[in-house]
C-alpha cells in the first residue's frame, strides 16, 4: 500500500541501505501533516452516512432521468446500490486520509473502475456530480479545521478527476 513510509522503505531496500537521515526527514514531514489528515478522517467517519446521502440526493436531483424505468436509479434495489457506491467512495477517501496517500483509492476504487462501469452500463457523470456536491458542501470551521478540509477536498478532487 503506497504511503510515504512504504515509499521510503522501498527505495532504501532497493539500494540495500539503512534508513538515512533524509529518509527519516521524509517520514517526519508526513507525520507533521498527519494531524490534519486524521482529524478529517475522524470527522468524515462520524458523519459518513449523511455525507453520502446528501451527495447521492444531489446527483439524482441533477440527473432525474435516472429515476426513469430501466435506468440506474429506477428500483429500490438500484437506489440502495447507488447510495452504497457513493458511500464506498467516501470510505476509500477516509482510508486515504488515514494512510496519507492515494493508495486505497488507486487500488480499490480506481483500478478497473472504468471497465466495471462500462460493463454494467453505468454513467460516470452522476458520480462526478455527487462527489462535486460533497466537494462544495464541506465547510471550515463548521465541519473541520481549514487544513483538514484541504486534505479532504484534495482527495475528492482526485476521485473526481479519475472519473472524468
Amino acid at each position, binding site marked *: *500500500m503506497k*504511503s510515504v*513510509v*512504504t515509499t*521510503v*522503505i*522501498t527505495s*532504501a*531496500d532497493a539500494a*540495500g*541501505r*539503512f*534508513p*538515512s*537521515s533524509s*529518509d*527519516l526527514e521524509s*517520514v*517526519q514531514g508526513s*507525520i507533521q501533516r*498527519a*494531524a490534519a489528515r*486524521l482529524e478529517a*478522517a*475522524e470527522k*468524515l*467517519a462520524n458523519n*459518513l452516512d449523511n455525507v453520502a446521502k446528501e451527495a447521492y440526493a444531489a446527483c439524482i436531483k441533477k440527473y432525474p432521468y435516472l429515476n426513469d424505468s430501466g435506468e440506474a436509479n429506477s428500483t429500490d434495489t438500484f437506489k440502495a446500490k447507488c447510495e452504497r457506491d457513493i458511500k464506498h467512495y467516501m*470510505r476509500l477517501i*477516509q*482510508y486515504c486520509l*488515514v*494512510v*496519507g496517500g492515494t*493508495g*486505497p483509492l488507486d487500488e*480499490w476504487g480506481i483500478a478497473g473502475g472504468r471497465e466495471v462501469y462500462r460493463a454494467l452500463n453505468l454513467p460516470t457523470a452522476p458520480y462526478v456530480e455527487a462527489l462535486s456536491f460533497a466537494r462544495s458542501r464541506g465547510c471550515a470551521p463548521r465541519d473541520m479545521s481549514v487544513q483538514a478540509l484541504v486534505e479532504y477536498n484534495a482527495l475528492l478532487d482526485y476521485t473526481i478527476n479519475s472519473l472524468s
Partner: protein
Amino acid sequence: MLDAFSRAVVSADASTSVVSDIAALRGFVAEGNKRLDAVNAIASNASCIVSDAVAGMICENQGLIQAGGNCYPNRRMAACLRDGEIVLRYITYALLAGDASVLDDRCLNGLKETYAALGVPATSTGRAVQIMKASSLAHINDTNTEAQAGKRFKQMGSAKGDCSALTAEAGSYFDRVISALS
C-alpha cells in the same frame, strides 16, 4: 508492504467499515519523533551492533571458527556478517513502518528453509539476533555503558523520556526473527 496506517485501513476494509480507532494512530503520530530517533539509533550503530553480535556468538562457541565451523574460513564469516546486517536492516524498516509486514515478506519468508538447506546452525543464528536485540535496545534507550563498550563507547545523546512502548515494539521484531528461525 504495510505501515501502521495502512494496516488499520486493511483491517477496516476486511469488514467494509471506516477506520474508527483514530486515537491509536494519533498516538503513533505523537510518538513519531521517538520512533525516528530509535531508527536512527540502530542505523547509526548498525555495523557495531552486527559485528559485536557475531563476535559474541563466536566467543560463546569457538567451534564456529575452527575448520569445518560455519564461520570458517573468512568467506563464510563475511557471509555471516552480511546476513546479520540484512536482518538488522529489515528490523529498522519494520520499526520505521510500525508494522512487521516488510520484515515478514522480504526477509523472514523462506529464510528458515534457506538456512536449513545451507546448513546454517539455527541456534547460533538465534543467539546472534539475541545479542543484536540487547545492544539495539540499549542504543535506543541510551543505556549502553563505557564498561560494556570500552573504547568504542558512544551514545546518541537524545533527550531522555518514556520509550517503553517503543522498546517493547522493537524487541518484538527481534523476537519475531528468532521465532521464525527456530
